[in-house]
Structures are given as structure tokens and as C-alpha cells.
């Protein structure tokens, strides 16, 4: 049994997946702190501990993400986009379009039948077009970020935002609250606004079904439903949407090991 690790050091979160060739053995997610090197060390150690393995058990560690170079134990580095594509394709073989809603920007990937990325587009680094705006408004409304999705689904009358900017939206949300608006209605408007921005981005690459939603934003059920509603489709959402790139990195690592072994065996 060959074990590999995929390590995705993102600007906001670091993720590790330990894979045995058949399934994910363990994974670990933690915020990326100031020192990417320390974070990388910690998340790898935690994932190994969860798997009941030691560093020596890992045949290949593939690093990806913004802080990939900080993974001391890496054997290779792969692009985040290719890792996203591989991971999504493994989870959902029918997927041809992947929408990744991260904490700073949103990406759209078009995949071929093998899970390779054919086309890729990313948004500007704009709070309103990423998960950041969810954080901003959640804070202003004093609702836990983990709960805004479910709460937004309770809305009976959505209140739409007039602005497309997270900074101005914050002011608008405060005004709405002062006028007596309920949080669920404001949150419904928030999710709708972000879904609309995502739709605009996706339209530029022409969506091909099936479509998967990954990244931190995919954990927000309100966002999932808003995108489905506004785009008129059903989204494929992984159980843990944040580890898709780390999983993809692990899969690429596994391929490397397999091909090396083939060479060795002859």
C-alpha cells in the first residue's frame, strides 16, 4: 500500500490530504498563519497523526497553492489549477466545469474528459466577488459565518443590494438593519448578489455540465442554492469542498509514484 500526501498551502487556509491509492485516509484543514513554513509543518503533522502514519510512510508529497514552496517535505510542486481539476474530476467524473469560490477570488475551470484543465478564468481580487463579502456581511450582521447560509434560506422576502461593492454593501446592510429589515432577508440578498457575480464570470467561459462548486464558499448552502437558482442548474458539491486541490495534488503524486514504480519494475 503506497501512501501519498497532497499539501495545498493557500493564502487563507492550508489543507492536507493523505491518500492510499484507493481512498482518502485522512485530511486536515487549518488557517494559514503568518509563517507558511510553520503552518505547512503543522498541517502535515496533523494529517499524518490522524492517518496513524509517520513521515517515512509517505512515498511522495506534492505541494500546491500560494505557499507551496514552504512545504519542507515536498517532493514536487503542481499548479493549483491542475490540482483543482484532477481533484474535482476524481470526485465527480462527469464534471466539466468547476467553480472555486475562495476567500479572495473566484475561479472557473473547464475540464476535458480526463480532468485536465482546458480553460481557466479568475475574478479580480475583489471582496464582492469572493467569499470575503460573506465574511464582511456576516460580521456586520453579527451572525456566525457558518450559519449565514442556513439562515438565508429562511428568508421570505429577499432584500437585494443596490451596490456591487463589499464596502458599500456593508453600509447598505447597516442601513437595512436600522430600517428594521430581518437578517435572513438581507442574507438572501447577499447570497443572490454573490451568485450573480459568479454567474457573470462563468458565462465568460460558457458553462458545460456537469458543474461542481468547490472552495470555502461551497460550504455555504445559501450560496449553493442561489447559484443553482440563478443559473438554472444543479451543482455537484463535495462533502468537504476545501480539500479538492489537496486531493488533486495527492492524485498527481500517486501517478508519479506509480510511473516510477513501473520504470523500476521494468
Amino acid at each position, binding site marked *: 500500500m503506497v501512501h501519498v500526501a497532497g499539501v495545498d498551502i493557500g493564502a487563507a487556509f492550508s489543507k492536507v490530504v493523505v491518500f492510499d491509492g484507493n481512498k482518502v485516509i485522512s485530511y486536515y484543514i487549518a488557517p494559514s498563519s503568518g509563517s507558511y513554513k510553520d503552518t505547512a509543518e503543522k498541517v502535515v503533522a496533523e494529517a499524518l497523526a490522524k492517518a496513524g502514519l509517520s513521515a517515512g510512510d509517505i512515498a511522495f508529497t506534492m505541494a500546491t497553492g500560494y505557499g507551496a514552496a514552504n512545504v519542507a517535505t515536498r517532493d514536487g510542486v503542481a499548479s493549483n489549477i491542475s490540482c483543482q481539476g484532477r481533484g474535482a474530476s476524481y470526485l465527480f467524473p462527469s464534471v466539466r466545469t468547476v467553480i472555486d469560490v475562495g476567500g*479572495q477570488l473566484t475561479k472557473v475551470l473547464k475540464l476535458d474528459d480526463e480532468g485536465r484543465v482546458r480553460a481557466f478564468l479568475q475574478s*479580480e*481580487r*475583489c*471582496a464582492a466577488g469572493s467569499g*470575503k463579502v460573506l465574511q*464582511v456581511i456576516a460580521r456586520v450582521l453579527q451572525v456566525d459565518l457558518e450559519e449565514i447560509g442556513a439562515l438565508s434560506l429562511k428568508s421570505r422576502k429577499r432584500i437585494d443590494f443596490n*451596490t*456591487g*461593492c*463589499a*464596502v*458599500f454593501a456593508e453600509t447598505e446592510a447597516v*442601513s437595512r438593519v436600522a430600517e428594521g429589515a430581518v437578517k435572513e432577508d438581507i442574507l438572501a440578498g447577499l447570497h443572490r448578489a454573490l451568485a450573480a457575480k459568479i454567474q457573470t464570470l462563468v458565462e465568460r467561459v460558457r458553462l458545460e455540465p456537469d458543474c461542481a462548486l468547490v472552495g470555502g464558499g461551497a460550504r455555504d448552502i445559501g450560496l449553493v442554492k442561489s447559484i443553482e437558482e440563478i443559473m438554472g442548474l444543479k451543482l455537484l458539491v463535495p462533502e468537504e469542498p476545501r480539500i479538492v486541490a489537496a486531493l488533486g495534488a495527492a492524485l498527481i503524486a500517486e501517478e508519479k509514484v506509480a510511473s516510477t514504480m513501473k520504470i523500476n519494475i521494468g
Partner: protein
Amino acid sequence: MADFFAGVDIGSTMTKVAIMDGGIVASVIGPTGPEHRKLANRVMEEALAKAGLSFNEITYVVATGYGRINVPFADKQITEISCHARGIDSLLPAARTVIDIGGQDSKGIKLKDGRVVDFVMNDKCAAGTGRYLEVIAEALGVALDEIGQRSLEAKSEVAISSTCTVFAEQEVVSKLAEGVPVEDLLAGIHKAIATRVYGMVNRLKIEREVAITGGGAKNIGLVKALEAKLGFQVLVPPEPLLTGAIGAALLGRDMVEEAAQSGLSLTRSERRLHEATFFS
């Protein structure tokens, strides 16, 4: 008998009134706040009191700005672009390009023979507007009216990589925690906003002289940062916040004079100031 004209400029952040005859007789500048209708009446009354005039002595009132529809006693509403252009044409006739940096928007205006020939505006994104500076000032714990001067005291410049206000705020807070001096951060921030505004206005093909107006023009750090981007000095009116109101008043005068020459009469607002106050 002198004719008096009034311009009321209700911006998203600040409200400005100018009462003029040949020059400025009285002016009022104050925060807009949420309630526009009462606001227009209140600032007008304040300006009239300062001028020692009654409302009936004002020949014509022009309203402009984001909240111009909430000026019930205005005889006419005219866009800010036109009013700013007219104001600069009077205050700084050499200007061919106007850069207006307001509380929640920024604009570039090209002038030819005192008329607007082209313009560009950002009112969608907080970056490049006064709001950007407000957010950063708050995050750094420096008063908004001090950030400009402080930015000029920087020993070295910090490059701010984020265009977005939200991420720029995060960036400066994190750099501040690492020990980067506030002045250096402010210098980086002023350069960032100047870059953004310049990028937008450059679509108009900038021609000298360039005038800076709006609240942003009162920020010496921003003016200097824009000059650095442009590569030459800019013109700034004595009270940059009043440009729109002055232009509005002057456009009112232009219209009255034109009407008098052609023998036509101008429609004036039916509601007078005291009636409007009852309604609010």
C-alpha cells in the same frame, strides 16, 4: 439690483450650498447623513442666514449631486458633471481636465471651451474614492484629515498589492502589526489610490492644465501622489468641496441671462422654502 443665485450640491457624503452674485456671498458645507429632504431645507436656511438674505431674494436655485432629487425648492436639477465643469471653468479657466474625488465616487472630466466633451466615472467600487481613504484611516487609527500630511512624512514607501479596499485594509493592518511605520503605509496607500484614479482618468487622454476637485483635493498627500503620477503640478481651487455648488449656481445664472436675452421666462419651482419645510 444684484441677482442672487444658489447652488445646492447634495453628495453621498457631504452637502454644499453656495449663494452667489458676482462672487460667493455665502456657503455652507456639512455632512449629508441619511435624511436628504430635511437636509436640503436646513442647509439652505443656514446659507441664507449667513448671507443675510431671504429665500425670495434668490433668483434661481439649481440642485446637483447624488441627492439632487431631494431638493424640493430647486428650480432645476443638473448633473454633477456639468456643474463641476462650470465651476472649474469659472475658478480655474486654464483647466482642460478635471479630476473629482468624492466620498463614494471619482470622476474624470474633459473640457473644451468650458464645455464637457468627455467624462469617465467610478461609482461602483470603493477603491479610488474617499471611502478607500476613510477605511484605511480608521484601520490605522489616524484622523482622516491628517492622513495626507502624515503620508508625506514617509521614510520609505510600501507597495500595496491589493486594489480592493477590503484587502488593502487587511494588508495595512497586517503590515502595521509587523512594525511598518504608519507614515510609510499611508504613502503606499496614497500612491495606490492615485494610481487607480489616474488609470481611470487616463482613458480620457489627459490634457493640461489638470484641476483636482472634491473632498480628495483637500488631501495634500493625494494631490502630491497624483502629481507624481502625472509628472506635473495640478491646480486646486481654494475650496474644492464647493466646486459643484458654485457651478450649479453659475449655471442657474447662465440660464436666467439666456432667458432674459431671448425674451423667454424660466419656469421656477412652485414650492417655496417655507412650504417645503412644512412637508418635511
